[in-house]
């Protein structure tokens, strides 16, 4: 079960309740490395007499996320063109500028008006007087497993939500309140826990308690934080990752059945 705490198109914070670490971690890993996005992967340089090397410019272009429509494009290896490159598996961005000028990501003209950079104001490089840059950059689909530039998320992590129990023999000495670095404990007639989601599971309160009256345990709940780079909405990333996981589970089932039949 999922309980959303904070959400917008690029960022989500939610609780995954009553699950287990194997699922939480495989979901996280799928979001990071198995969800495809479109990114510049190949750049043809016709003219470049700027102060930057071709490789540096190609590298910088590849790091700018592109708004991706997953239904619109195929993977190159699965495309009918067999990886040669055609309009249904790649998009070409063209640029021809002369200095003096700062080249922004928005200056690149896309072949397909629906496919464009998420941020149009990323400075790529500065051209000085008499310098020219003429390039053709090819974007294609890929997954984070292949190269980190294809990752649709920048920050994607979970933590186990703890449970803090105060036992009967607490003498309200307040040592744990002072020791807690996240300031989640308070004494108001009895020891109270303020915001359990802030707890970092450091267990300093357990160590400092002389009566051993406080207990910090792990639960089956997970607090996820996901931040999209903008290539895909965060909900799409979550959904697509689950689809990939289902595919993988089905494949695993098939392998198990085959093994079972042959043995």
């Amino acid at each position: 079960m999922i309980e959303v705490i904070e959400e917008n198109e690029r960022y989500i914070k939610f609780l995954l309740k009553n699950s287990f670490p194997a699922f939480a971690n495989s979901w996280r890993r799928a979001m990071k490395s198995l969800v495809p996005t479109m990114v510049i992967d190949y750049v043809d340089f016709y003219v470049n007499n700027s102060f930057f090397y071709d490789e540096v410019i190609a590298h910088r272009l590849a790091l700018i996320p592109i708004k991706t429509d997953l239904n619109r494009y195929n993977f190159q290896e699965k495309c009918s063109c067999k990886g040669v490159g055609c309009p249904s598996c790649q998009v070409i961005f063209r640029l021809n500028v002369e200095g003096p000028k700062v080249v922004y990501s928005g200056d690149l003209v896309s072949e397909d008006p629906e496919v464009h950079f998420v941020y149009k104001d990323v400075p790529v490089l500065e051209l000085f007087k008499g310098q020219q840059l003429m390039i053709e950059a090819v974007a294609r689909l890929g997954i984070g497993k292949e190269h980190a530039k294809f990752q649709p998320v920048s920050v994607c992590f979970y933590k186990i939500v703890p449970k803090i129990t105060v036992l009967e023999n607490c003498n309200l000495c307040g040592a744990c309140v002072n020791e807690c670095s996240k300031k989640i404990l308070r004494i108001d007639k009895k020891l109270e826990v303020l915001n359990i989601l802030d707890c970092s599971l450091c267990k300093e309160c357990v160590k400092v308690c002389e009566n051993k009256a406080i207990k910090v345990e792990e639960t089956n709940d997970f607090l996820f934080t996901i931040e999209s780079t903008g290539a895909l909405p965060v909900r799409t990333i979550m959904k697509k990752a689950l689809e990939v996981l289902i595919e993988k589970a089905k494949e695993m089932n098939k392998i198990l059945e085959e093994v079972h039949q042959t043995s």
Partner: protein
Amino acid sequence: MSGIPFDENSSDFPIRCFSCGAVIAHFYEKYKDLIKKGRTPKQALDELGIKRYCCRRMFLTHKSIIKELIRFHGAVG
């Protein structure tokens, strides 16, 4: 504020944060504008909504090397 480089060339500012991978390059010129208006780096970064300290240090410690690159222009590339 002295010693903090804030008027560096933005064209070789890293596009992504080295640690977390968030896109940050489009904030650098806005950051410079805010500093020029008299904000401290802390206020400017808070205003731009850069929360994590990995991303914040990218702004605080950026040093443009384009002037150094110019000296080698034509010699090797």
